[in-house]
């Protein structure tokens, strides 16, 4: 029954690239340039390299535990209760990321495109779209990513081609004027914003075809996404210069506004805006999907769809509550986000890997052995416990009729799985249960990837004090000024 919820490695790679671009493409150039000024492009290079290191870590995790859905794997590795607490924190993190994505979009629309529209209206319309996409399920939105990705590339190509004549190398000098330290600082911003957030994909990865190629695709896609960010950063710095870049809230948007070819081709900034909408749409779809999926698996539901609308209500409220104003959001994203996101993006996978190694859970073998082991495991588990996969019964309801029918047929056997997992408690059964769950995942390609998500939002690192004061004082969308004053006292920007 497994095939319904599998996505191909190519779709997965497109999702990763979109995820990397979402929010970063508009916000990152300024956030980096705050630290490293005209050397921001070097920061971006270092950041992409460090980010690929993060992806390698995630790949190591996937190699070891990729056959088990993430939520299940957490409970398997850390024990049932600690695992549940960790999953709950992960759900919270994923929720927070989707909230931030929504707010970034709202901020952008209200400051740049629809200044007279209340931000809540924009949030609600966008959120309705997100809920619809997530309700259709992983396969459907992955396929749509395949459709939209070429458009994104086309628009970016147009922008890059029109801007390229305006590059002025003088803006990049003096090179390395402030030493290496600021460059590292700028690169950490880039690591924090898309790369630390990629942990969310651990929930999706068990649903990607071909366990070996997906890791390579993950790395390649992260690298390509990083290169696109590097390209945009380089263009922004070299065309606008470091000071204008830092002063703009959305420097790449300002960059595309400058396009003017022979007084004929002008005002193409909407292309960049569309690029950004597309990528942030997928970033938010992924974070919202992981929130709902991980929560449903935590609660041992078979489907996540009933949680979508209440979660959307909460998201709409919290998108307003999280930031008192855009300035505070920028400061949070550029300073507190990296250490916070690294808790989930770096330390959590590392912790899971170490504990799994100590407890000897998961497959240690490389290459293709996972398949073999999974199959043996699955046959074992099937014979032993006839129940192995309830996860297979999670069908995306609205999307595929066949999946639901297959889910029905399985539902009997799958219903047992909860009880099964309950009965297997304690570390002694750990390896056994691990194999069971692995078998589940492999036998039903459908199995919901357990998701613990965290990092999605740190994108708005752009704003610094300068930016804020100049552009956006008038724009603060939230009435709750008291919070902002508190925040300001807390945080002096670096």
């Amino acid at each position, binding site marked *: 029954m497994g095939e319904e919820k599998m996505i191909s490695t190519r779709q997965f790679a497109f999702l990763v690239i979109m995820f990397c671009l979402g929010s970063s493409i508009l916000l990152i150039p300024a956030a980096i340039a705050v630290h490293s000024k005209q050397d921001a492009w070097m920061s971006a290079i270092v950041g992409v390299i460090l980010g690929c290191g993060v992806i390698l870590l995630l790949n190591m995790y996937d190699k070891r535990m990729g056959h088990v859905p993430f939520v299940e794997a957490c409970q398997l590795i850390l024990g049932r209760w600690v695992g549940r607490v960790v999953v709950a924190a992960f759900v919270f993190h994923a929720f927070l990321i989707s909230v931030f994505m929504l707010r970034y979009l709202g901020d952008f629309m209200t400051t740049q495109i629809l200044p007279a529209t209340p931000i809540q209206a924009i949030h609600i319309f966008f959120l309705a779209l997100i809920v619809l996409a997530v309700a259709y399920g992983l396969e459907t939105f992955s396929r749509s990513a395949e459709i939209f990705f070429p458009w994104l590339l086309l628009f970016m190509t147009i922008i890059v081609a029109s801007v390229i004549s305006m590059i002025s190398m003088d803006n990049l000098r003096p090179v390395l004027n402030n030493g290496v330290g*600021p460059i590292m600082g700028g690169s950490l911003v880039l690591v924090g914003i898309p790369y630390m957030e990629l942990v969310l994909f651990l929930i999706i990865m068990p649903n990607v075809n071909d366990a070996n190629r997906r890791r390579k695709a993950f790395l390649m896609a992260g690298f390509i996404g990083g290169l696109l960010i590097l390209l945009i950063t380089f263009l922004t710095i070299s065309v606008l210069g470091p000071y204008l870049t830092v002063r703009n809230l959305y420097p790449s948007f300002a960059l595309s506004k400058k396009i003017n070819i022979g007084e004929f081709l002008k005002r193409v900034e909407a292309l960049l805006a569309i690029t950004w909408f597309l990528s942030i749409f997928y970033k938010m779809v992924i974070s919202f999907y992981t929130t709902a999926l991980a929560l449903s698996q935590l609660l041992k539901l078979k489907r996540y769809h009933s949680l979508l609308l209440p979660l959307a209500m909460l998201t709409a409220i919290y998108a307003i509550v999280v930031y008192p104003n855009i300035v505070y959001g920028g400061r949070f994203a550029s300073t507190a986000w990296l250490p916070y996101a690294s808790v989930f993006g770096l330390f959590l996978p590392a912790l899971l890997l170490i504990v799994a190694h100590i407890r000897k859970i998961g497959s240690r073998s490389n290459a293709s052995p996972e398949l073999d082991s999974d199959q043996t495991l699955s046959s074992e588990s099937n014979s032993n416990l006839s129940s192995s996969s309830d996860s297979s019964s999670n069908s995306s309801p609205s999307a595929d009729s066949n999946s639901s029918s297959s889910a029905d047929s399985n539902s009997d056997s799958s219903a047992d799985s909860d009880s099964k997992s309950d009965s297997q408690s304690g570390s002694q059964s750990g390896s056994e249960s691990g194999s069971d769950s692995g078998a589940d995942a492999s036998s039903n390609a459908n199995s919901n990837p357990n998701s613990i998500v965290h990092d999605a939002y740190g994108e708005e690192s752009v704003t610094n004090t300068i930016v804020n004061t100049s552009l956006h004082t008038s724009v603060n969308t939230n009435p709750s000024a008291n919070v902002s004053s508190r925040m300001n006292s807390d945080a002096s920007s670096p």
Partner: protein
Amino acid sequence: MIAWIIIGILLLAAVVAVISLYLIKRQGTKREKISFIILLTFSTIMSILFALDVPLPNPVIAISRVFMPVGIWLFNVLG
């Protein structure tokens, strides 16, 4: 005015409940129903509090308390 907002929120919650419960009834489980009702109640209460301008617990402020000093330290070290 506030009363109308609250009525609107309750209406929205009712619509959500009707749609979702219909779907759950068709192919869901009891567990799903219970978690949906709890979550929806929570969301509705939060919405009403939000409409009444009650300050809601803000995770970002808590996160900032803990991680902002770390971030500032980190970026200061790097210049």
